[in-house]
């Protein structure tokens, strides 16, 4: 089962194994190795995002649209179409955003910000009302509290519907913020809080599996790829 140690001879495996250990060393306490890993990470990831953003989005959506001939640079066999001047708008907004780098012009950067916020607010409003309000009301109502099939009462579905109804309603009551939680009303709100605690407990329990999976992944690489201990 446990084979002898076969250290990897691949340089890249060594680099990633060492970086892995440098990060794990933070579990003991903060130390220079962790700091090195942290600072490499910050630099590499910021640049990676910029590079990916440039080639996947800025290039096709702005540069190629304005200068169709540019598409030959990345794929020589492409046939450039006509220029699309609507791409000037995001380019202009983007340049305004970069004005934030110059303190005296930084106020211009608020316009693209306003566009971004306006877009999210506009799209978000309707999408949230549809998916997280209307659909949820429909789903809670379902087939009522006494669903039947072939003249038989489906008691398990019935119980589930009742629990969901009570939990959802008392939870909504908990979130009513312009009224103090007192008396009978407060007790309903408290019931809502208890339901949410069940939710949080379930989430926490479920999350454990997620986290352990990541740890297993790292150990597989350390023990397998690097030390050659796993068959």
């Amino acid at each position, binding site marked *: 089962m446990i084979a002898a140690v076969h250290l990897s001879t691949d340089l890249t495996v060594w680099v990633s194994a060492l970086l892995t250990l440098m990060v794990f060393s933070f579990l003991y306490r903060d130390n220079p190795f962790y700091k090195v890993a942290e600072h490499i990470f910050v630099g590499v990831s910021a640049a990676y995002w910029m590079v990916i953003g440039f080639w996947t989005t800025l290039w096709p959506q702005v540069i190629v649209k304005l200068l169709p001939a540019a598409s030959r640079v990345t794929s020589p066999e492409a046939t450039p179409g006509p220029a699309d001047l609507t791409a000037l708008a995001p380019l202009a*907004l983007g340049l305004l955003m970069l004005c934030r780098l110059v303190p005296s012009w930084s106020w211009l950067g608020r316009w693209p910000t306003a566009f971004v916020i306006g877009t999210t607010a506009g799209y978000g409003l309707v999408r949230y009302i549809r998916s997280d309000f209307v659909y949820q009301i429909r789903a809670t109502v379902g087939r009522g509290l006494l669903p039947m099939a072939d003249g038989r009462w489906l008691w398990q579905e019935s119980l589930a519907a009742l629990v969901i109804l009570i939990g959802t309603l008392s939870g909504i009551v908990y979130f009513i913020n312009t009224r103090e939680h007192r008396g009978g009303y407060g007790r309903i709100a408290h019931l809502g809080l208890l339901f949410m605690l069940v939710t949080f407990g379930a989430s926490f329990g479920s999350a454990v599996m997620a986290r352990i999976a990541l740890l297993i992944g790292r150990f597989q690489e350390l023990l397998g790829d690097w030390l050659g201990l796993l068959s």
Partner: protein
Amino acid sequence: MRRRITQIILSTVALLLIASAFATRPSGDDAPVLTRLLAFCDQHFSVWFSVLAVFAFTLGGVNLMKTHWRKVRDRAADWRYSLITLVSFVTVLVVGLAKFGGPPGLQGDVTAPDGWLTGIFETVLSPLHATLYALLAFYISSASFRAFRIRSTASTILLASALIVLLGRIPFGATMTAWLPAPLTFLRMEDLSLWILKVPNTAGQRAIMIGIALGVVAMAMRLIMGAEKGQGGRSGE
């Protein structure tokens, strides 16, 4: 004045997009101008938004460089670490923009398997990412040790629901309750844990969702009506 322009941009964009959700799709050129305008906005604004996201990455990157460059220049505390950030940033930027490795010149995909960027991704970024996440496995074990104590009704409920879900996910939990006879099978750990997720969890999540949906609507309305102070402070206007 400047502030008013900002507000006008925000409100106009938002209202156009809200209207576009209910507008009839224009069919042909004789469709009303308004519906064609709304369709144009619906189609293009999300593309523009995405382009702006890339400009935001860039703004972030340049800011990062400014901060760390200043530290290196002033020989501030820990400036050597800042130098590491600068060097790794510039290296990846050059490698990525020039598409080193991979197909000749600037051709092909930046994430081509033999490109240097992919090499950096697999040897540096990927293990750093994954290990930082894996720290969570340790943190979640110490946090659950600390947090799941029977102190009150509330914490007991939290504990019970977490334990059932935890046990329901592993074979050990299933074996523990496998002896339960036929009418009580729903109490078996794996079924009970799925029931908790499907029923009380759904209720709690739904209450949160409906509340948040209303929160989103309210925030959007405040933004459109110019009643939101949160974005951007007050100076410089």
